[in-house]
């Protein structure tokens, strides 16, 4: 049986952070790219759950799913983590996770605008004293359609609210122009606004993480991290 603190020290996300020389950093945008169904949302939830376990507030924003669905996703991943790592203070940890997490669903909205998210962030701070340090944005932007002005606005939002902001981008199976690192050109064209790019690569029956961009760092660390295909959790050593 282990307590939450020890668990946090051993988390594979510490490896991830070290490779990134401290993490994404506030005011920055990180992108997770992969083919459909490989586990982008799961990986973002991994990152969020790790923040939550360390009592860092996270706002999870979804454009496609209901709050209920996202919560059940967290519940499953938390349950799996607690079981597999034999977490001692499970009930308290669960409460801590819930206290620091807020899920915001725009599923019922016809057209999503960043302004709306900005309003909601202000609102949560004012009425619920909720000021996230990380924001997981699932379903926005659509890199094939987004404009430079919109990406700039997203970056501005991250800076204004001092957020580590994570988004996802889709790799198509074929016919998608990519640069020499394998980054889709539709993502690469906004390079100036993106601080970190991580690619999820299926290899056989597991998924490897590859660091494609690490701030201004020319030497990219090899991550040696993988997702367990069954639980979609990062594999613990």
């Amino acid at each position, binding site marked *: 049986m282990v307590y939450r603190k020890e668990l946090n020290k051993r988390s594979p996300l510490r490896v991830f952070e070290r490779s990134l020389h401290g993490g994404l950093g506030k005011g920055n945008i990180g992108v997770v790219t992969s083919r459909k169904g490989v586990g982008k949302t799961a990986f973002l939830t991994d990152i969020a759950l790790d923040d939550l376990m360390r009592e860092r507030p996270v706002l999870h924003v979804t454009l496609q799913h*209901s*709050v*209920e669905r*996202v*919560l059940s996703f967290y519940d499953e991943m938390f349950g799996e983590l607690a079981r597999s790592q034999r977490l*001692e203070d*499970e*009930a*308290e940890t*669960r*409460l801590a996770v*819930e*206290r620091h*997490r*807020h*899920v*915001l*669903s*725009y*599923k*019922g*909205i*016809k057209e999503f605008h960043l302004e*709306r998210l900005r309003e*909601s962030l202000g*609102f949560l701070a*004012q*009425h*619920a*004293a*909720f000021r996230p340090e990380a924001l997981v944005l699932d379903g926005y932007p659509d890199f094939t359609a987004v404009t430079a002005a919109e990406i700039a606005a997203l970056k501005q939002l991250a800076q204004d609210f001092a957020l580590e902001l994570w988004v996802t981008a889709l790799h198509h199976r074929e016919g998608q122009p990519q640069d020499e690192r394998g980054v889709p050109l539709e993502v690469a064209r906004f390079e100036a606004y993106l601080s970190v790019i991580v690619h999820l690569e299926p290899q056989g029956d597991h998924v490897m993480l590859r660091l494609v961009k690490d701030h201004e760092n020319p030497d990219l660390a090899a991550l040696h991290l993988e997702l367990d295909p069954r639980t979609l959790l990062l594999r613990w050593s």
Partner: protein
Amino acid sequence: MIGELSRLRNIGISAHIDSGKTTLTERILFYTNRIHAIHEVKGKDGVGATMDSMDLERERGITIASAATHVEWAGHHINIIDTPGHVDFTIEVERSLRVLDGAVLVLCAVAGVQSQSITVDRQMRRYKVPRVAFVNKCDRSGANPARVTEQLCEKLGHNAVLVQIPIGLEADHQGIVDLVRMKAVYFDGANGENIREEEIPAPLRHEAEARRELLIDAASMFDDRLMEAALEGRATEEMIHAAVRKGVLARELTPVFLGSAYKNKGVQLLMDGLVRYLPDPTEVENEATRADRENGESKFVVSNDPRDPLLALAFKLEDGTYGQLTYIRLYQGRLAKGDTIVNVRTGKKVKVGRLVRMHASAMEDIEGASAGDIVALFGIDCASGDSFTDGSLVASMASMHVPDPVISLAVRPKDKKSQDSLSKAIQRFSKEDPTFQVAADAETGDTVIKGMGELHLDVYIERMRREYKVEVETSPPQVAYRETPGRAVDFEYVHKKQTGGSGQYGKILGSLEPWSEADFAFENRVTGGNIPGEYIGSVEKGFRSMLAEGPTIGAPVVNMKVTLADGGYHAVDSSDNAFQETARGAFREFYPKSNPKVLEPLMLVSVETPREFQGDTMGTLMQRRAIVLGTTEDEDFVRIDAEVPLAEMFGYATVLRSATQGKAGFTMEFKRYAPAPAAVAEELRQQFLEKRQAGK
């Protein structure tokens, strides 16, 4: 007896309190010719709708009991199971959902999908109930059935599609266009009983064609034949119906009907639709559990075959004008007057004296019933949820989840003479409803009733007054707390007593620890006969006897595991009693060292509010130690989901109403027990100590 099962439907009508469910039911009963005059819910004629058999429901305009009513329509037999409309009566809702095969989800054309609909829908999903929707109140100002259909998709995740469009809305609501037949339908006569079919009015022609196309698109996903035919422009009525039905049975399509029950519009078409699209009993899989001496318990799917051994579930008890009635659903086999059946839980044999089919206000004696049907028995002693067989089969319908009560209050009759009636009432209610429980307060001797929420208990107190003429005084409601060890501790304890007569001796070593998998677990690891086998059980019994009242705040101790590792005994002085006492002593000394935690019930609260009140609503929750889980925003409304300690929720309805000008609504259900904050735990501890002090 009902002949073909394909002509039988067991359906529920499920809805938000104000969406007009009772009026709709009333109209259905009228059109099926079972009652002869229509009464409104809060009737001006003072009679009240027929399904609401209890006065209390009549007064509040809501339906609490789930009576099953039999009607006939278009050559089909339909049992309508009236599902309660408030989440505080969850167990009743769940019980109804257990026995029905399909449901009509009634929605208000103005208010649309509300928080209540979300809760009910969640329950239906859990029980895998296929649904059709009825958008009622199209005559009301602000009615918009197309928007409600969109909400069904967005908020509830249904694949909902209109099978009708309205001819006029609000005050101008005249009739309905049937998109399958492509006809305009009007409802003439004082009660809309005369159906007149016409060509679709020209101004609606275009919209009707566009909507029909959407319907065919949606339906053709379930039937290749329709898809091909539609491409060639030769889709027939029969093909569309068949495809929609497939979608409904797969629970992947929700056809949306509309109308106004109050204005007698659309009800007959809805009846046609539910007969056409909802499943018969053989099209739904129901699981039962078989107990077998060799193989233990195993699950199997009931056969629906009248030739197989009987298996029936008692899902509702009612104490009314006719004496005690037990509603049962037959899952296989048949049942006839004079048969002897066995209550699987008690093993008792009972004889079926009278067998009846219930109509809204009358009943009909019948000779027998068979698989798939819902009927009522007279004079059978059983509890709700019991299964019956013919004795050749030891099986029961998979049990329904019964949550532990989370709230309690003491009741005392104002008039001493009423004590008997009070006992009778309580005995009755606890038989009907497993979440309604009763206990005696050890200190005050008061009768304490327990349930799932404030409103849940309120309803029973009202029923005591009305049905049993008992006026009671009640204590303020108490939250059902629990306590549990905070960490593992090892114990070593010797119980020794030698004061005259035979002595007492017992020695035990082991550990007690938090255990999330059960309320209590006991593991014996004693080897080599250090404690004789016969006393191991005594040790367990001793620990168990301490669970009812923990020393921290006097609440039941849960989630604890005791491991007995070693011990010692004395040839003469050890006894069952001595080892029980040893365990109790060990618990008293070592449990407090485990840093016990207080657990409080957390409720899942969903508040639906117009956006303009989002801040105020959030405020009301933040003041209540809420953990806000998430918000769902749509164009005008916001839903906030939060976990709130039950202790903070008393009187919330009033607070929310005044904070939002009555425009927000909320639902609440028990979620789980969670550790209470230190300050709360300390306060409870002080209260417990004071109470104990006072008691001495």
